[in-house]
């Protein structure tokens, strides 16, 4: 069953990058306390940045990751500062507005790069072990995702992560000890968006790039965030890798569009079975 081993390996690699994206979403949910539906758009943005760079002959994944992170950070800070922060106490405005931003980006991408899926050359196989091929980009993306996740976990547990944790815990106390809560919020939003774009840039060669490609990872990260919390980064990692394996396996065993359907079924089940499961995370407000 060599193809199966290959599918599992690819699932592990993509799952690691999805974990990165989910960690960003969890950060937004924890610190800004909004359910952000525009996270998938930043993933798509990262993938298109990688595509454009590859198209211009810059094949280095690190260049793509860096560019994607900078651009997404700028857009994320803008969105967080000028839209999410002012409306964040209205659940309707946040949900529909962040979805609106995602759709705005999807339509813009469709106008610039066309509606049809495009792809990046994966590069030559690096190592072939008994029929399972490892590619340079895949290994680099896996290691970089792991490294960034570890960095995030370290950051959150270090003294520098305290402001974020305090804003997440109690914004009034954070404000009264002299922290600029609004600034921490929009910077977190920007950083989390940059993380999503990094995940998109890392996964660009592995999946077809299309304007609506961000929806699958968005749903996957939402599942991860609903099922786990903000602090435990490694829970997020294992859940995302599990879901990545599940979606790759179902695409391999059934048909490609079943992996998205399966993820949607999982999130529906999760929400229906645990209607109050998440309100512990987004607490303190009367919806």
């Amino acid at each position, binding site marked *: 069953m060599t193809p199966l081993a290959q599918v599992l390996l690819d699932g592990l690699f993509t799952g690691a990058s999805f974990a990165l994206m989910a960690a960003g979403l969890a950060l937004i949910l924890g610190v800004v306390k*909004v*359910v952000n*539906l525009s996270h998938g758009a930043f993933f798509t943005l990262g993938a298109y940045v990688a595509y454009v760079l590859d198209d211009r002959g810059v094949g280095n994944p690190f260049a793509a990751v860096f560019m994607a992170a900078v651009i997404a950070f700028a857009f994320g800070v803008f969105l967080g500062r*000028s*839209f999410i922060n*002012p*409306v964040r106490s*209205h*659940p*309707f*405005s*946040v*949900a*529909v*507005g962040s*979805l*609106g*931003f995602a*759709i*705005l980006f999807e*339509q*813009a991408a*469709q*106008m610039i790069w066309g*509606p049809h899926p495009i792809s990046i050359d994966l590069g030559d196989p690096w190592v072939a072990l008994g029929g399972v091929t490892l590619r340079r980009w895949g290994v680099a993306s896996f290691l970089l995702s792991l490294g960034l996740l570890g960095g995030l976990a370290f950051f959150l547990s270090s003294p520098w992560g305290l402001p974020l944790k305090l804003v997440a815990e109690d914004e009034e106390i954070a404000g009264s000890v002299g922290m600029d809560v609004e600034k921490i919020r929009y910077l977190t939003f920007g950083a989390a968006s940059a993380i999503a774009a990094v995940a998109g840039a890392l996964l660009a060669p592995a999946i077809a790039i299309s304007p609506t490609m961000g*929806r699958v990872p968005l*749903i996957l990260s*939402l599942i991860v965030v609903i099922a786990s919390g903000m602090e435990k980064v490694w829970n997020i990692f294992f859940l995302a890798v599990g879901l990545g394996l599940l979606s790759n396996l179902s695409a391999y065993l059934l*048909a490609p*569009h079943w992996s*998205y*359907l399966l993820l*949607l*079924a999982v*999130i*529906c089940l999760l*929400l*229906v079975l645990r*209607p109050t499961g*998440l*309100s512990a995370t*987004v607490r303190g407000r*009367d*919806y």
Partner: protein
Amino acid sequence: MKKPGISPYGRIPGALAAAAGVLLLLPLAGLDAYFLNVLTVGFLLAVFAGSWDIAGGLAGQISLGHALFFGTATYTCALLTSLAGLPFPLAAVAALLLSVAAGAAVGVLSAPLKGPFVALLTLALGEAAHEFFLGQTFFSPRGAYSWGGEGGIPVLLRLQPLSPWTAYYAALAFLCFATWAMLRIARSEEGLIWTAISGSELSARASGVDILRHKRRAYVVGAALAGAAGVGFAACVGRATADDFSLELSFQAATFAAVGGRGTIVGPVLAALVLHSLLQGTGIPPAGRVLTYALALLLTLRFFPGGVVGALRERARSRRMVQAKGEAL
């Protein structure tokens, strides 16, 4: 005491009557078939936006999967007329019943959820339906080609093709009737309960309202109206595609409602009509149209959270308060 001339809804009824008069007159003023068609689809979209406002605006449920009910209706019409060979009226009845069933199902699932989680669940349900029908093909009985997905399934009307005039006036009559019905519902006791739930679920529950049952009812009523709009759309366009389930369509309904004024029925209906006719009439490609909707939505949510009608109503209210103060002095 109520003063003559100032209804709680301001000058809205008069403006509505004037708008209906203009729309009745337009075809006689020599509008060509293309614009008639744009307006006909606009009327149906307006009903769709209004139906979103029942569960989404009045009852305050952030629904992002409203296209599910619309697509259920168009697909039922297409499958029953083209594959099963039923006459269109029978298929239309079945389509309405199925949309109501879909509304009841979505209502049962999402009634216990709150705030953003309603948005997530309805979004996931709508996306699941879209993804399923995008991949699902049906064998056409005539010829060896397949129907479904992006290409769609034809809807057989078995009449001579509708003239643009007939379709226009039928859709306009449907819009007027549906708007009247939705306004009646909004001002009924049920509508009042929905508004209370939207304001605060806790206080509605404290005053003895079974909020789950009333939320489910809101979904059913909204789904029935969306289904009616879908039947009209199927008859008018003659084809049901997977796009009828798309997130873009659900998003448009929420956008029209947010821009027009959530929970006002009239606002979403007018916003849908105006935005659709303006952007479709000027021939902007679909991607640019949805992009413009998204921009309008973000700007409205940021600067006029109540939408156009909400902002007007707020202004009228503050003016009345100033007047009342002046009289008291």
